[in-house]
């Protein structure tokens, strides 16, 4: 938060628009919004940091919590889809670590 807030304040100061609501600046001809902070919180466990670093480049981590409990095979398929379809830069080793973590902490076995 320490490093982000000054950036946001700076944006607000530089903005030529009056602020008319939380996270919103607008006139008749322009609109700017500031999205609220993301939720980074996942269950602690082996592989958590690898999951956070690999997944967050494309989407917030609440995507993981959003899913229904999935089997190990289903989570592996999700990770494979991220690599093959969306081009996530995840090594085979890391893919295994990530699938294991997801199945353990967000799987059907719990």
């Amino acid at each position: 938060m320490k490093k982000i807030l000054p950036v946001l304040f700076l944006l607000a100061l530089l903005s030529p628009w009056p602020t008319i609501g939380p996270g919103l600046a607008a006139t008749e001809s322009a609109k700017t919004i500031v999205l609220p902070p993301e939720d980074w919180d996942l269950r602690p466990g082996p592989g958590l940091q690898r999951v956070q670093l690999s997944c967050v480049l494309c989407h917030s981590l609440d995507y993981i919590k959003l899913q229904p409990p999935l089997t190990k095979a289903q989570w592996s398929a999700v990770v494979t889809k991220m690599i093959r379809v969306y081009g996530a830069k995840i090594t085979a080793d890391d893919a295994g670590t990530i699938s294991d973590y997801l199945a353990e902490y967000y799987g059907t076995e719990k």
Partner: protein
Amino acid sequence: MEKDFTRRDFLKTVGAATAMAAVGGLPSGLQAGEMRLVKFPEKTELRLLSSRPPQLETPLRYFTEEVTPNEALFVRWHLSDIPTAVDLSTWRLRIGGHVTAPYELTFDDLKRFERVIYTAVIQCSGNGRSFFNPRVPGGQWGNGSMGNVTWTGVRLKDILRKAGIRPGAVEVVFDGLDGPPVTTVPDFIKSLPMDKALEEDIIVAYEMNGTPLLMLNGFPVRIVVPGWYATYWVKCLKEITVLDKPFDGFWMKTAYRIPDTPCGCLPPGTAPAKTIPISRMTTRSLIIEPAAGSTATLNKPLEIMGIAFSGGFSIKEVIVSTDGGNTWGKARLGRDLGRYAWIQWRFPWKPERPGRYTLLAKATNTIGESQPFDDLWNPAGYLWNKVEKTEILVT
């Protein structure tokens, strides 16, 4: 189009590890499926599915209103690099491709075409996905990724005709200001067949419920394809391109497809032999009041209230059961806002025994399309329109 603070900038600025430790703005420790309400810019508190890209669901109580308030309408983006700023002095809508005279429109130019206003249901293809059994991955929407909105805009066909569609044109593609967070993720681009794109009722909308579009709902303009699922309603539109061959982008060729079967469904857990792009919405009804899980008072008259709509055909009839489906009566239909809108319905009822009750509603449209009593299933979690059970307690 300025994007003040993109995902990449954010991660670059703070570093992912620092950010993980430092950013704790939202409540934590909740289980999947729990209702967590958050407030995004221009929005009231909505159920959070995901924050980047934003996916926000409307609490059902807003559906007691005839049209859904802008601040309560659901939000669904596909790519995390979403537009957070648009300046109309520099924004342009480009029309090009297989046309004789490509051109650009300013926001003011756009509004000079003939104005069209109607009310239409906007509904995510995955609305109701969380009810699938077996469960399927994807946004776990309840029934709140839909809304009834009065749209103001101009006809897409007027915009296309001005460019002069050349012979051999087969599809029109739509691209918005959102972009992929990394270059390997396919940009969100959708297409419509040429004959569909030229239909009278498809508009480029610049107002929702009489005010400019909210940023998260597509400011300054979005495509409205009434009767079809919202995947086609491209937000923050920047480019319309006419093609002389079918578009083969990821979001048409691979994503948003349903099994090519009469119901768009399959035996649970199986894979389709052939798929087609999702298009027209299935017929639905939903009980809004009394809310599921609520308690009603014995011998006190009440009105069961709900909504019903279909993919472009008016609702002819809604029947309601208060005894789990053994007996049915006709609901009284409310004001008709047109064939693309949802219609409210009411069913007076006096519970005369204490205990648990199962309420059901089933809609039929003017061409006989209705709703299944059984689960329907497909691998992506689309087309949900099962007759749902609303359980309440009478004391």
